[in-house]
């Protein structure tokens, strides 16, 4: 039985992972919906460039993203120094930095899911809402947003799962500090590097599988409930 119990270090890594992923997803959701809406609905110069930039984390090695974050948001990075002076926020080598790394890596997944969903909304229904006296903002919140709920849920779950699994960008940007930036994958990696760490590594591995499965099942269930709701 002893082999099934998580060690304090592992519990800490699990808690930190959930905490970091929660903030990564919650923090990037409003921006993700906004960007998805812009890409789905507006034509503007440089749109393909914006689109490409957002998708970079999907195609670049995560270490590259981590390094760019370090250069940009590190203590001596241009944006990092500015952020520190202005708001007193430091991202380097703490959990906030880990959340930012996870958010950046998960952002394209969230934007893609929401954007697809927005593109599938019947613009005629939005036009109908306009003729019924709702301004563009009200139409967005009373018609568009409710109708893209499934897309947002999918985006949230995908982004959350991606954040939980974030490794390369995190370890490059905020390093692997126990209790501060050592998330589940980082702890797992550390255990595999330690003699006698195999049992702990297997436990974390199983936990990762369970969380990922739970997230997928939850997302499926929510999508089905929404479809049932629409069908009345």
């Amino acid at each position: 039985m002893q082999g099934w119990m998580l060690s304090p270090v592992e519990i800490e890594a699990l808690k930190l992972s959930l905490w970091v992923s929660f903030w990564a997803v919650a923090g990037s959701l409003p921006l993700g919906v906004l960007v998805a809406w812009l890409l789905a609905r507006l034509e503007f110069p440089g749109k393909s460039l914006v689109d490409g930039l957002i998708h970079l984390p999907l195609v670049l090695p995560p270490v590259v993203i981590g390094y760019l974050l370090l250069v940009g948001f590190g203590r001596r990075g241009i944006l990092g120094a500015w952020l520190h002076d202005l708001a007193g926020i430091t991202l380097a080598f703490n959990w906030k930095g880990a959340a930012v790394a996870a958010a950046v890596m998960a952002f394209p997944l969230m934007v893609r899911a929401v954007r697809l969903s927005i593109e599938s909304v019947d613009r005629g229904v939005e036009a109908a809402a306009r003729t019924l006296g709702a301004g563009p903002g009200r139409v967005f919140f009373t018609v568009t947003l409710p109708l893209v709920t499934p897309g947002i849920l999918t985006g949230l779950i995908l982004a959350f799962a991606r954040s939980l699994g974030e490794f390369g960008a995190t370890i490059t940007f905020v390093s692997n500090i126990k209790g501060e930036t050592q998330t589940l994958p980082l702890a797992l990696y550390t255990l595999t590097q330690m003699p006698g760490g195999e049992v702990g590594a297997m436990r974390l591995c199983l936990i990762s599988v369970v969380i990922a499965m739970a997230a997928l099942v939850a997302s499926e269930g929510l999508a089905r409930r929404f479809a049932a709701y629409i069908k009345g």
Partner: protein
Amino acid sequence: MLDLHLIRQQGDFRVDVAFRSPEVGVTALFGRSGAGKTSLVNMVAGLVRPDQGHIVVNGRTLFDATQGLHVPPEKRRIGYIFQDGRLFPHLSVKSNLTYGMRRTVSSEQGVSLDDVVDLLGIGHLLHRRPAKLSGGEKQRVAIGRALLTSPSLLLMDEPLASLDRSRKAEVLPFLSRLCSELSTPILYVSHSLEEVLNLADTMVLLDQGRVAAAGSLEDLMNRRDLQRLTGAADLGAVIATTVDDHLDGLTRLRFPGGGLWVPEVAAPRGSRLRVRIGARNVAIALQAPPETSIQNIFPGQVTAITEGPAKLLDVQMDIGCPLLARITPRALSTLALAPGKRVFAMVKSVAVSRGHLNVPLDMNTDSQRRTL
């Protein structure tokens, strides 16, 4: 009153339309698909911005290119009923109905939810979601939703076009009731002659983005030069009548030329009814035939004779109102017909059509207009 002049270039297609329509009643915007009808109503609703021109509804300017004025759709107070319903799928029927109502200033609310639910017979649907409704029910809810914003003008863009025949017959009675009971003017887009005959009073004929003709329905339908555009399968005269009497399985309709007997229609006396008499179903005699199975014989005068298709001739007569007969050249020479000649026009009762929709006729009345 609606007064508009709209110009808009859309690719190769140019809409340049100007007309005025009356304060009450139904104005049909009639034309083939691609004539620019939907573009036009979208501009009136404010969903599409015209390049040039103006839109004035009941004295309120909604668009004026020279002033750079373009009132956004949500501030126009124009109800729009779309061909495809466009209900909000995530809201119940009741929430759909009240969506616009809740954004209407209460002092401007002319109708109550109960009135509209009653009028459209949708009381049993209130708690359903649109996905659970039939096509006809959806369209009734869409109509109610627009009505509840108490609009100063109602736009209907082919509200029946997406419905099959039986669904059409389900919605049409509500539409005609609405058209006759509502004081709100209605702009009704259609390419179906039957619907227009059933519902409209005034007609604007659109052809390739332009107004080909505008005027009362009877005038336009009886003009031969417009036959290509009205798309009537055969030539015929449209006559406004009033239900006068029911007798022996027949109904007598009163019109300026006398009484027209038709197979019994289930409409109360006094209801108004528009009928169409095909030119092929009208025969001409020089004397009133003493014994005949034909019930309808009207004295009149030939006003014009024009050449029809396949060497046939179209005789226009005045029997108190215009009537058309299509005859052969031999009949013309035998009877020596010429403008001014006195004749008797004979119409078989069974040949009178009142549009081809199988609607109970009591729904097809506009006996009294009243405010809801």
